[in-house]
């Protein structure tokens, strides 16, 4: 049992959190490319170590450890399967590292970017306002829906619902959880829409925003940082 609030974006004040979401997006894409472009241990180790710099600047070590622990099963699986098929341990580890780079760099993007900053970035990139707002709301309501789900599961377990016994049973037993979740979800959706309506949603074709995104020096530095592996690519 954990509190669903844990899944809510929490503002922290680090240099990584303050970066423009667009520069972090560039960084993630660049890291994905670096992770996939070469498959050797040395290069991937260097790239992985590099991702630890923004992790540490953003004070995300704890989050990284939690994510890696959650992904441990897959990491071990990748190593085993690749070793069995290729009998090449360094290749097997390299492929696991590739997976870890994806986790680490995506974590930097997802945990430090406020959903509404990201929404604003999308809006500025030309996505329609309705789409951007829908995106924003769905991120906003994840913890709420999770809290609803927790409460529903508690209420049904208190009436003897077994949620842990057997696979078929588990599927069957999700009906008493899913139906209230849908009912509550629909009610919330109606409330949210009504409340937005009452706060002038849809009044202007071109809504303004309280803040504007601005690229600062740190963003250019961060983008440059994303291309450091170019050096590794030619040297290693």
């Amino acid at each position, binding site marked *: *049992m954990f*509190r669903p609030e844990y899944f809510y974006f929490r503002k922290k004040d680090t240099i990584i959190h303050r970066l423009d979401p667009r520069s972090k997006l560039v960084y993630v894409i660049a890291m994905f490319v670096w992770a996939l472009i070469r498959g050797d241990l040395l290069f991937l180790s260097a790239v992985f170590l590099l991702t630890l710099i923004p992790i540490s600047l953003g004070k995300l070590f704890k989050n990284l450890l939690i994510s890696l622990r959650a992904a441990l099963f897959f990491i071990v699986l990748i190593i085993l399967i690749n070793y069995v098929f290729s009998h090449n341990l360094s290749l097997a580890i390299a492929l696991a590292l590739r997976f870890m780079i994806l986790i680490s760099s995506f974590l930097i993007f997802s945990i430090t970017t406020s959903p509404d900053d990201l929404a604003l970035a999308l809006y500025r990139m030309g996505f329609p306002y309705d789409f951007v707002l829908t995106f924003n709301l769905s991120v906003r309501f994840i913890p709420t829906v999770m809290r609803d789900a927790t409460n*529903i599961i508690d209420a*049904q*377990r*208190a009436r003897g619902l*077994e949620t842990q016994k057997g696979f078929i049973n588990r599927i069957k037993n999700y009906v008493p959880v899913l139906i*209230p979740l849908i*009912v509550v979800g629909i009610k919330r959706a109606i409330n949210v829409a009504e409340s937005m309506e009452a706060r002038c949603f849809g009044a202007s074709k071109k809504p303004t925003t309280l803040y504007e995104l601005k690229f600062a020096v740190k963003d250019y530095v961060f983008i440059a940082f994303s291309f450091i592996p170019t050096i590794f690519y030619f040297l290693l």
Partner: protein
Amino acid sequence: MQKVIEFKHVSYKYPFEEDYAIKDIDLSFYEEEVVAIIGSNGAGKTTLIKHMNGLLKPTTGDVFVEGINTKKATVAELSKKVGIVFQNSDYQLFAQTVYDEIAFALRNFGYNEAEIKERVKKMMDYFSISQYEKSSPILLSGGEKKRVTLASVLVYDPKVLILDEPTIGLDFNQKKNLKHFISRLKEERKTIVIVTHDLDFVSDISTRIIVMNRGQVMAQGDPKDILYEEDLLKEANLMPPSIVKLAKGLGLNDRILSFEEMLQKIDNLLLRNV
């Protein structure tokens, strides 16, 4: 009186959090009690009651339900003894008919259909909802939903009934009915635990009050002692019930908690003056 639930040095911390949600709780609950657990939002009341049927297991310490350590029993086993009715009815109503909704727990506990039928019918009578037997519980009004949820727990006859913020959103008549229902259950020797910040509601029906604040038990005792301790309530972010404010204002020396008692005292006061 028979002890039903016992907390021994119970602390609980949610994963990934620094602070304990409840700290070092030592409490016992007995047969035929109506216990009100009061405290402001975030005081740890809900975390506490989730320990009583094993939904949460203590991080440190132990909870015993009729002598059984909750760590060694499943939620289903404990729920047969301890029923919880949560605040929001929408969080549990799911069946196609009111009948099936009330029968849900019995089916989970493996009762046969004949027994189920008998018990469900009895509950529907008890709560005057027989006319909705074949209706969808989801489409009922708020007060009716509350009655269905109460029936769906009471139907398996738990020894302890826990009501989580039962008065939120209820109007005057619904509250009156709920009060009536609680006193009936008390006569049936059940233990009733009411978690609430509605002190007006519990002032004249509880036999004991537990005050929680920041995850700890600040005080517990007779309602007459607790509800007249203004400083204590203030520290727990609560306000005395209206009846206490009025009685103190009028300078009544006795600690009264019900309107009827108050009228009697006034009677004495005015007659003495005449």
